[in-house]
């Protein structure tokens, strides 16, 4: 095939620019948006390589020593361990309880259902400071001293609402005819739940568990009221802010970020592979 050279009339620069801008507005907006979102993360990551002695506020020099020895700074790993332990227990319990509540609300009609639906939102709407203070007052009134278990109980409490909301959304999108079809095909209630309902709701439950863990891991205000002498990672960072946060905190923060990224990406990849198959 031969091509014929046709002179293309060129538009004046101003017009060309407006047209280009019009076509790429969304892309530009996305770049600006993501930059805004990720600069703090990037900053945290970069400063995890800072060769700082005490305070990690000014750049001193590049080093790997923080990553090689994340537990180098006193108390970092202690606090981290507590946070993970509290997070895992709170997540497990909140996910189980929350999922059960979500099924009850999503699948059954009973007296007080709509009231429960509304009440379950309340812990999410209540200011954390108030929740934390009331919980502390309650524990003290019951003669329970602040510490590890009161913190766990507090975390379970505020995580449940989020689990319920997330799982309920998934249940709502589940076609009840699928369960009816399973029952029609000789699966009793238990088998129907195990083979149809649970696998189909599982992504919602997993999402809820991740959300619960990150909420628990992240929580400072409620924890600060109820943990007493137990140190958690957010508490550690907050307290050390006064005398200088060690770079190891950035290492832990960055690691958490990459771990979350990894989980999300893996989930996405598995999902894509499944859809393709």
């Amino acid at each position, binding site marked *: 095939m031969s091509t014929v050279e046709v002179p293309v009339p060129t538009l004046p620069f101003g017009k060309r620019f407006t047209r280009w801008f019009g076509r790429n507005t969304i892309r530009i907006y996305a770049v600006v948006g993501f930059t805004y979102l990720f600069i703090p993360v990037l900053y945290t990551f970069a400063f995890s390589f800072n060769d700082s002695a005490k305070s990690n506020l000014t750049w001193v020099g590049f080093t790997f020593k923080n990553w090689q020895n994340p537990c180098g700074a006193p108390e970092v790993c202690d606090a981290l361990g507590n946070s993970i332990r509290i997070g895992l227990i709170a997540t497990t319990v909140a996910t189980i309880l929350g999922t059960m509540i979500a099924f009850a609300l999503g699948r059954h009609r009973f007296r007080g259902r709509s009231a429960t639906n509304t009440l379950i939102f309340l812990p999410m709407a209540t200011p954390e400071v108030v929740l934390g203070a009331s919980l502390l007052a309650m524990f003290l009134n019951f003669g329970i001293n602040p510490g590890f278990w009161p913190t766990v109980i507090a975390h379970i409490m505020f995580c449940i609402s989020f689990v319920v909301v997330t799982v309920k959304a998934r249940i709502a999108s589940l076609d009840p005819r699928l369960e009816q*079809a399973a029952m*029609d*095909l000789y699966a009793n209630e238990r*088998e129907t739940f195990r083979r149809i309902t649970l696998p*189909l709701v599982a992504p919602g439950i997993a999402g809820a568990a991740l959300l619960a863990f990150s909420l628990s891991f992240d929580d400072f205000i409620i924890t600060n009221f109820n943990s007493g002498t137990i140190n958690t990672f957010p508490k550690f960072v907050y307290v050390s802010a006064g005398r200088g946060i060690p770079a190891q905190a950035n290492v832990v923060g960055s690691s958490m970020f990459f771990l979350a990224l990894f989980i999300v990406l893996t989930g996405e990849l598995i999902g894509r592979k499944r859809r393709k198959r």
Partner: protein
Amino acid sequence: MADASTSSRGDLKLTRITKSYSDFNAVDDLSLTIKEGSFFALLGPSGCGKTTTLRMIAGLEEPTAGSIHIGTTDITTMKPYQRPVNTVFQNYALFPHLSIYENIAFGLRRRGIKDVKSAVDKALDLVELPHLADRKPNQLSGGQQQRIALARAIINRPALLLLDEPLGALDLKLRRQMQIELKWIQKEVGLTFVHVTHDQEEAMTMADTVALMHDGKIEQMGSPADLYDNPKSVFVANFLGQSNLIDGKIVDSDGDNFVVDLFGQKVSVLKSRSSAKDASVLFGIRPEKLRIQPSDADKPGNVLTGGRIVDVSYIGVSTQYQVEMPWGQEIMVFEQNDDGIPPLAKGDGVRLSWEPIFSFALDGHEDATAGSEVEVSE
């Protein structure tokens, strides 16, 4: 094939079934026997109770009163998974997280049946989709999903296969094709099929017996031809095809016939085709049973004179006339274009004639429009 349900085979028998909701009866004192091995259609407009009836047979709803038997087994209160009944759901309800193979094998596995593989292969062959075993439901077209849903139900060899508007989501061409296939499969496997539909043509082409439902009751039940040719109520006459219904009075009895006066003209109808309760009748005749001739023609049989053509539509195989009668009513006539005579024109004076055996008489106190304006879309 192994069979868990041989113990309860036989006719399906619904006895005085009622399903009440707080403010109305979806199904109202319905009794029905469906012969083993037959293709039975529950036909009716939306809201007539046909789907509720089906769900009670499947065990997905419990009747408020009445009982359901298969053969001699009372299944009224059995759980869905205890019944030898399988359902093809309206939107197929294939399990999205399982492969086609596992979808079809589901019922067998739950009953702990060995040799799932050969049964699944056979079922896939029956619906002519053996190459799709490893796919997921959402990778299949609507027609393919429909067949898989059928295979998933049939593989269990239930005493009863329920089909809830199974062709509702398919386009017209595929629908026609699946109607023929379903009928063929039913013959092939010899199971009792109970098919719920709002599509009268679908019910008539597929079923041996059709029950037309209306307001939770069965209006009329019988073979498609019986329902069409000899409707017992205005609802049936209008819901199945089209009917001309003319106000009349029975004035005489003549052997097997009643003599009916239609606005001064005498016609006859077989007594066996009359469901009139007294002298007042709605005299019915299907548009395609009418013959139309110029006013001066002379033909035997039942005749109505004094008509005038007000509208002519030529549709190739036939011509459709609207004929205004002296008493103001418009009568519809379908005339086959098979006699080489050019169609009559608008404004022509005509007479209508028909063989007396084609007419029927309904109770004259019924509303003549019942069933004609029913919402049929689900």
